[in-house]
């Protein structure tokens, strides 16, 4: 019995190490000098700690700027999309607006649309509206995309919201707007915070539409800068491992900060 337990545990640990092995390889090689890499290959430990590869790559892509762009875009989208979602879900879930089932269905469909079916018109319209190659265009697009999901999720959460609370607040003389901010938002805060985190990470990770919209170096996000460089096949081994490390680090930081929210959120989001 306990032998079998130990064996299964052993297999699970080995598999987990296999899953993490690529991360370890990236870390080892991003800290290795090109000469060391050429002489000893990608599997050995670095002979000495070499940070120049990362510094060079950082400067080559102006990584600080890319981090700022990604943060501005993902941050704005997550706040705006949560705002839009809660407003819509309030009208649908608590306001019980006529035709709400159809409205929710439309948002669900919007959520399924492949970006391929929207990208060319969006590109065309952004050019017409002088929004092409601006962060604002990407912020508007992803606020719409994420709030389609947020509306769908939140309106099902709010449809089970305790009506006594809303009625009690109304009897106390609170209007719709006050009820939303003083009653509904505080009570739904756990769900809203999950959405904030998810919208931030999802938007951070987006590549296709940001790549089409953001052509100038000054506006590009982290994934766009790294993806375009990788697509051009212009990096050597050291640059590639440095690029991989710089791309991984923010994701790992988010993961460590938000681990609880993430795992709780995935379970909530999937079953709703």
């Amino acid at each position: 019995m306990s032998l079998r337990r130990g064996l299964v545990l052993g297999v699970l640990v080995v598999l987990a190490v296999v899953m993490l092995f690529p991360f370890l390889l990236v870390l080892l090689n991003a800290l290795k000098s090109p000469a060391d890499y050429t002489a000893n290959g990608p599997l050995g430990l670095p002979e000495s700690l070499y940070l120049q590869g990362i510094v060079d790559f950082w400067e080559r892509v102006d990584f600080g700027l890319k981090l700022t762009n990604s943060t501005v875009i993902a941050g704005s989208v997550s706040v705006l999309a949560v705002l839009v979602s809660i407003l819509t879900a309030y009208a649908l879930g608590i306001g019980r607006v006529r035709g709400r089932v159809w409205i929710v269905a439309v948002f669900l469909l919007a959520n399924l649309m492949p970006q391929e079916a929207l990208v060319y018109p969006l590109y065309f319209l952004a050019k017409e509206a002088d929004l092409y190659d601006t962060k604002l265009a990407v912020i508007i697009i992803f606020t719409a995309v994420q709030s389609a999901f947020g509306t769908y999720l939140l309106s099902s959460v709010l449809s089970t919201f305790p009506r006594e609370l809303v009625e009690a607040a109304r009897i106390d003389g609170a209007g719709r707007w006050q009820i939303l901010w003083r009653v509904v938002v505080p009570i739904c805060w756990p769900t809203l915070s999950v959405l904030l985190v998810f919208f931030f990470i999802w938007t951070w990770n987006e590549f296709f539409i940001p790549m089409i919209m953001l052509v100038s170096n000054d506006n590009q996000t982290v994934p766009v800068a790294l993806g375009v460089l990788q697509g051009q096949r212009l990096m050597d081994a050291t640059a590639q491992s440095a690029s991989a490390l710089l791309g991984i680090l923010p994701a790992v930081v988010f993961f460590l900060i938000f681990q609880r929210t993430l795992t709780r959120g995935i379970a909530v989001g999937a079953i709703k």
Partner: protein
Amino acid sequence: MAVLTRPRTGRAGYLPYLLPAAVLFVAVIAVPLAMNIGISFTRWQGVGSPDWVGLDQYRTLFADETFWVSFGNNLALVVAMAVLPTLFGLLLATALFDVVGKRYARTTTALRAAFYLPQVLPAVVAGVVWGWILHPEYGSANALLRFLGLESWTQNWLGDERTALLSVMGVLVWIQLGYPLVIFLAGLQRIDPQLHEAAALDGASWWQRLWAVTVPQLRPEIFVVLLTCTIASLKSFDKIFVLTRGGPGGSTNTPAYFSFQNFFEKTNVGYGAAIATVLTVLILGLTFLFLRAQNRSDG
């Protein structure tokens, strides 16, 4: 009841709250989608005025071998992103839950985190990581094979038509595995332990209990995972872009990538729009079938 206590205008008072979402939806989703469908009936280079050609693009598309190859490749990606992760995720989640489980909560959390980590990476970054590992000259995969004395097994993983699609599939399994694992682990907490105890008393083996108790109990989660992962695989653009750019010789092309090529590389916009429209119809059709199957099995 609520109607009695409130005037009818009560509901209408909520309409302004729908305004921001309505404006965004129309501008970013409805209008572009309609435009895309419109463009798919034209021949257009992206500049000047489009020429109306009716269903020509669709006729060309259904006779286009490149499209059908890309479609077939996408079926392979469904296997890699939906089928295999669901199977492995189910096995891993049950093993983790049964063996490590609540008694060693910290170990479970650590193992779950290890499997889930690739999921939080931007797909592009996962592509950079694997593009580097699978590089024929300086990549770790071939270095490892040489180190093990398996020189003859070394490959140009992403650059050879025979191995490219399989390599992409492997990368996708690595990326995707954590998602079903986490969902199933959450679902397993919900199952009444008495079901397993009763089955064990009846002499059911671990595999029999997995099949007879766990799988039916996890049916809602399995449905959701299969549906969302299948749809995600039909939207495979970013991974293909960084790993192979659809090559070599179209052996890893997908409809999503093929539409991008037509939109932005060949400026064959009408054709790209037709591919994207077919992709949309496919996704909506699949979702409809899935939801119907789910309703039927619930009822």
